[in-house]
């Protein structure tokens, strides 16, 4: 008798997420078709608003695969935005500023990663310190809100306002004008990051080592993998991706402020979890996290389109979804335990 091929846990969790996203989006389309929810642009807007989050979630997925966590990402994004805004206000060019932000990410990640990898300090504690540091530094750079206008830096302004139109999927508005769908630069950056990290996780030794460490750190060490270096690199990667996310975020908001991106780390963690990444490590995929971000974005979008619901509703819906996912995951774990007995 031929045994039915087992779907592995990675794939199944991802599948559930995809189905959920489609159902949610289809629901939104049916209920709010009159308000233009069916237009392709609605979907693209979700991508535009969440491009920063996509990069951050990719980074977080990487560390979560090793059974770690990085809660410094929200503060780092705020710090990045503030650096960009203040730097450019003081006359530094857009490209040097972006490079500086990336270098900051490398250093930030190097410090956090070394503490976690080599000194074996709990990731939660280390990145919590990073979180306070990032938020504090943001305020040290400048306490008030700094907007990036055309006068401050024309190049950055041009990047932020560039429309990349798509040749399909447009609609004619009620004044009879054809509205071509468009995305922005940050969406391209985010999607590029997504693809690179996806391939890296799947096809490089480093990527596979991340999964191995998440599966069993002790075994990974026994099998001769360099656990410490791999963990350090994971946190470095997370901070670098967060910095890229910070640039995307800044392109979207065109401002730096101390209160920016508060709780972004939680959005990223919840996206990853909804996308099927286990907090216990070893299971997960950036595609899942991407769809997790889309699900969160869709919820916000639906609530916004409705117009009457209070803005707190996305939180409650996200909470409900997270709950469902945690239950599914624990059922999974229970099933696995039973099978192994």
């Amino acid at each position, binding site marked *: 008798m031929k045994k039915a091929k*087992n779907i592995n846990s990675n794939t199944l969790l991802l599948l559930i997420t995809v189905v959920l996203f489609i159902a949610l989006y289809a629901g939104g389309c049916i209920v709010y078709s009159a308000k233009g929810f069916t237009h392709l642009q609605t979907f693209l807007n979700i991508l535009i608003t969440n491009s920063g989050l996509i990069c951050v979630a990719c980074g977080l997925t990487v560390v979560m695969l090793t059974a770690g966590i990085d809660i410094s990402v929200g503060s780092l994004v705020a710090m990045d935005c503030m650096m960009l805004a203040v730097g450019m206000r003081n006359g530094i060019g857009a490209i040097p500023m972006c490079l500086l932000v990336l270098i900051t990410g490398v250093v930030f990640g190097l410090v956090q990663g070394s503490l976690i990898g080599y000194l074996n300090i709990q990731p939660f504690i280390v990145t919590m310190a990073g979180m306070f540091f990032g938020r504090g530094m943001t305020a040290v750079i400048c306490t008030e809100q700094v907007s990036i206008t055309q006068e401050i830096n024309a190049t950055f302004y041009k990047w932020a306002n560039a429309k990349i139109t798509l040749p399909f999927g447009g609609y004619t508005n009620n004044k009879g004008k054809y509205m071509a769908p468009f995305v922005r630069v940050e969406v391209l950056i985010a999607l590029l990051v997504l693809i690179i990290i996806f391939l890296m996780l799947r096809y490089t*030794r480093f990527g596979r080592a991340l999964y191995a460490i998440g599966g069993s750190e002790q075994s*990974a060490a026994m099998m001769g993998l360099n656990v410490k270096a791999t963990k350090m690199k994971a946190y470095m990667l997370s901070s670098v991706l967060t910095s890229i996310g910070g640039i995307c975020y800044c392109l979207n908001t065109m401002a730096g402020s101390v209160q920016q991106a508060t709780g972004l780390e939680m959005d990223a963690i919840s996206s990853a979890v909804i996308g099927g990444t286990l907090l216990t490590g070893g299971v997960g995929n950036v595609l899942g996290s991407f769809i997790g971000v889309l699900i969160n974005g869709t919820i916000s979008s639906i609530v916004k389109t409705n117009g009457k619901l209070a803005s707190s509703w996305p939180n409650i819906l996200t909470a409900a979804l997270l709950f469902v996912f945690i239950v599914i995951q624990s059922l999974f774990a229970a099933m696995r335990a039973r099978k192994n007995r």
Partner: protein
Amino acid sequence: MEDNVVLTARGISMTFPGVKALENVDFTLRKGEIHALMGENGAGKSTLIKCLTGINDFEAGEIHIEGVDEPVKNHSTRDAQNVGISTVYQEVNLCPNLSVAENLFIGREPLTKLKTVDRKSYNVKSQKIMDDLGISVDVTQNLENYSLAIQQMVAIARAVDMECKVLILDEPTSSLDDEEVEKLFKLMRMLKEKGVGIIFVTHFLEQVYAVCDRITVLRNGALVGEYPIADLPRVKLVAAMMGKDLDDLAAIKGETKDLSHEPLEISAKGLAHIGTVKPFDLEIHKGEVIGIGGLLGSGRSELARSIYGADRANTGSLKVKDKDVQIHQPIDAMNLGMGMLPDDRKAEGIIEDLTVRENIILALQAKTGMFKKLSRQKQNEIADRYIDLLSIKTPSPDTLVKQLSGGNQQKVILARWLATSPDFLILDEPTRGIDIGTKTEIQKLIVELAGQGKSIMFISSEIMEMVRTCNRMVIMRDREKVGEIGGDITEQKIMHAIAGGEGE
């Protein structure tokens, strides 16, 4: 180095703080042989293996490996793998969330031209490796989808594929069933044909005789000898491991005495705990050793727990020394002169980070109350007395318990209960997981204690052990007391009673 020898260790010595773990030990492994490394708990087997695999730094001696000119000194498992020594442990050290193929190749995956891992190539290679070893698995499936036995074999396959000359199997069969063990043996024999030298560490004597060619015996960190399997029958092996004659084992108990005229220590009537044990009557006399027999899960421990108050009895009455008593929780039982050694000692018994002395006085301190601290002098007195009485092998009473071997930890817990000088002592699987020598000592001790007028309830999965020590047996089946055997207790009688009349 002589021909066809793959590994020699000469004069290996190693000390842990206060304990001489290995002293001048020699070990020789030949090509294509399965070599059993035997010894009681604490004999130095694990230490020797850790010296070979680079986990322990040995102090003196040399290790030579075939093909390496210099003496080898490993500093990590990675070093050991590089010179061809691979180890497979009792717990599978692989990643359950990765595919079988990845587990075989992780960290050394074949790469494509783009420096990415070549999944196709290692999937094909892995399938071939597993097919060659006669293990039928789909290598693209996650490891967690397979049984522990298969996982164990994948670990071995990985070790073998890394071109190991020496394969160390450390208690690989502990969690496998008979059929799985047989599969593992098949694999071991196959590797032997290929010229791999295998070091096999196990507690199971019959497995040694089923698969090994040669036996090296260690005792107390010293080499006892190396023997071809044919020269060392089972009885002699046990004697070599324990360093004493086996006659001790046979007759621990003298004649079975009739103790029914002695005063009653415990008398239960219709005692029950709903859901775990059905109502039972039980009388235990002074100086009696009463065994509780039955299959695992038949209610053996539960019966004891309901007397001791660990599970509060719902119905029935209990008399201790002919007085009606109410036991709500274990401290009540302790105050009535009872003690219980629970079966899950890791979780309920030993406290690893306390010293031997502190572990021993723990129950006594709890009984006297936490505000009446025993004086240091008194503590030392008690600890010394029981270390001596039970011959606990520890460098000092102030050694941490986790530094002792399993059997000695066991004795420490036993000492803890003896220190409360109970009149009635419940021992739930006191000999599980410890070596034969210590087992015998504990059995002797039980008989001795009974001789001093203590009543003992002895629960064990090993029938012979109870036959040797008990005056009377209670048989449990399906959470119910189904019978008692007194007088001449034999293994057959017990088996029949447990099986429940279907025996003949």
